[in-house]
């Protein structure tokens, strides 16, 4: 049966629980090229939501709008009860939103621990002089950040590489460090842009486990872009499908698997399902 396109959402007032994320009639174009066209959907708290679609469908643009890196031409973004015409990137972390990037976005020159601790930058209050002099407040703040970073390193099995410069690590490990940096602030909403691109099968399986744990143990709502349909079907509660900047389907994995529109636009015939695209 075809997946039902969700009605334009009126997010917070809709149910008892406000959405972790909702976008409402988002449109975005670059020059004459439409990246997003009238997109509306909502993600419930605690959900793992995948966004799939062919290359150039507007998935990354969508994430960039939600994290404030792009300003939409029209529409609104709802984050934890606040509504924005343009999300203020500088306040993103304070709003409880973290993200990773499609291409690695680590601080190559910093150690793994410092990369992860940097994920708590928005909580630091001590001024630079207090840090240089080493006032107690600054020292405490820093120790707390490091302790939290160490927790995340343990959580994602990164203890061994704690002091290594992030740039020297293998690709899959760097991806995990980036996930740790995004999780260290215990975000309410975690946006993952192709977290598994370029990973081996084992790495993908591990990372799927970590993503699920981020939801189950750390309580994050997760929105991820992913090309590996096998992974997506196994991991997500709901899937939104974009094609040419439009939302063509939004439903459970089963809905999506059987949606003729999605099969036409993206999935292709059934035997491609298992292989996925991203391999």
């Amino acid at each position, binding site marked *: 049966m075809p997946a039902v396109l969700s009605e334009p959402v009126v997010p917070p007032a809709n149910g008892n629980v406000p959405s972790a994320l909702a976008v409402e009639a988002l449109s975005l174009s670059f020059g004459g090229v439409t990246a997003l066209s009238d997109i509306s959907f909502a993600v419930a708290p605690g959900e793992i939501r995948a966004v799939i679609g062919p290359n150039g469908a507007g998935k990354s643009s969508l994430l960039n709008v939600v994290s404030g890196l792009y300003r939409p031409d029209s529409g609104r973004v709802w984050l934890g009860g606040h509504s924005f015409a343009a999300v203020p990137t*500088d306040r993103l972390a304070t709003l409880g939103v973290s993200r990773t990037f499609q291409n690695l976005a680590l*601080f190559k*020159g910093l150690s793994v621990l410092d990369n992860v601790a*940097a994920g708590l*930058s*928005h*909580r630091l209050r001590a001024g630079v002089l207090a840090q240089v002099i080493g006032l107690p407040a600054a020292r405490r703040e820093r120790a707390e950040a490091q302790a939290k970073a160490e927790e995340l390193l343990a959580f994602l099995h990164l*203890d061994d590489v704690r002091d290594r410069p992030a740039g020297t690590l293998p690709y899959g490990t760097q991806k995990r460090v980036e996930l740790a940096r995004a999780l260290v602030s215990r975000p309410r909403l975690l946006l993952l842009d192709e977290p598994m691109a370029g990973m081996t099968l084992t790495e993908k399986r591990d990372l799927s486990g970590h993503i699920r744990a981020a939801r189950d143990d750390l309580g994050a709502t997760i929105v991820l872009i992913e090309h590996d349909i096998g992974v997506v079907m196994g991991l997500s509660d709901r899937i939104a499908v974009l094609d040419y900047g439009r939302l063509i389907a939004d439903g459970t994995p089963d809905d999506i698997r059987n949606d003729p529109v999605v099969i036409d636009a993206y999935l292709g015939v059934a035997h491609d399902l298992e292989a996925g695209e991203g391999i």
Partner: protein
Amino acid sequence: MTDLALEKTATGTVRRLSPAPFGIGVLLIVAYGVPPLVASEYLFDAILTPFLALALAGLGLNILTGYAGQVSLGSSAFMAVGAYAAYNLALRLPGLPFLLDILLAGLVAAAVGLLFGLPSLRLRGFYLAVSTLAAQFFVQWVFNKVGWFSNDSPSGIVTVPPLSVAGLPLDSSAGRYLFALGVVTAVTLAVWRLVESPTGRALVALRDHETAARVIGIPVLRVKLLAFAVSSFIIGVAGVLWAFAYLRTVEPAGFNLDRSFQILFIVIIGGLASLRGAFLGAALIVVFPLLLARLGEALLGGLFDSGVLEMSQRIVLGLLIITFLIAEPAGLTALLDRAWNRICGRFRRAG
């Protein structure tokens, strides 16, 4: 709840003790103790004191360029601001202690640096480098045009008052060296604390991935401007040392684009984002022309006059920089580290 599970595994990491504190201690004892006993005036005035001033300038630029990743070609302008600010403070407010003069001169340089750092909020890389050239030319022009800064000296050349701190005259070669060493030690300590602090990490984050830095809540604009301010402060203090401890007679032309490049070369040759780098680079830049002169004289005798020397200096230095950029972008610091590791490795195998 689940935090408990996380915390269990988080503690109990053992950090390796580095030999650094010991080495630095020895270095400081040597630096303070040995030259006053053995060095000649020539060694102080032509090598050690200018080395210290340039190393400090390199340290300042390294914060901006090495750590924060913002290219600047205006360093010597900030040296000039520091030097002339201290000169005017000493001249016009003779009651102020000289250490306060230095601090204020650094703050003036920081303010000017902040001003010329504003374009960095919109410009990057090559474009920013060109905009810092504006600082270089503008500042030099102001000191040439506005007589007030040089106390209306017709040539623009000013002679600074003899150095004395808290009534203690330091106007000997050794005294000026020790004074410069004291300032450099204090500033280096502060810089070390800075680059090891969360703010120092934020500088590197900014350099390595500005967008990611913004997303995780690093106040990018503030950190960038801070980098300009701190860097200019330190370069300004280096300018004070240049004027008061080294040359004692300064003119705007002494703080020209050549000097800015010299400081940039110190940072590149020594090693970006490394405190040691500034010192190694400065040592090379100061000693290298002298070595080249000796070598040239020995090989070519009378043919090697000052014109040839200056030209060959530029050529060899240029080649050296190209070599470093290609073969060892991390500079002398990395070379030294590798050599050190090899020595240690051999010891371990032998022992």
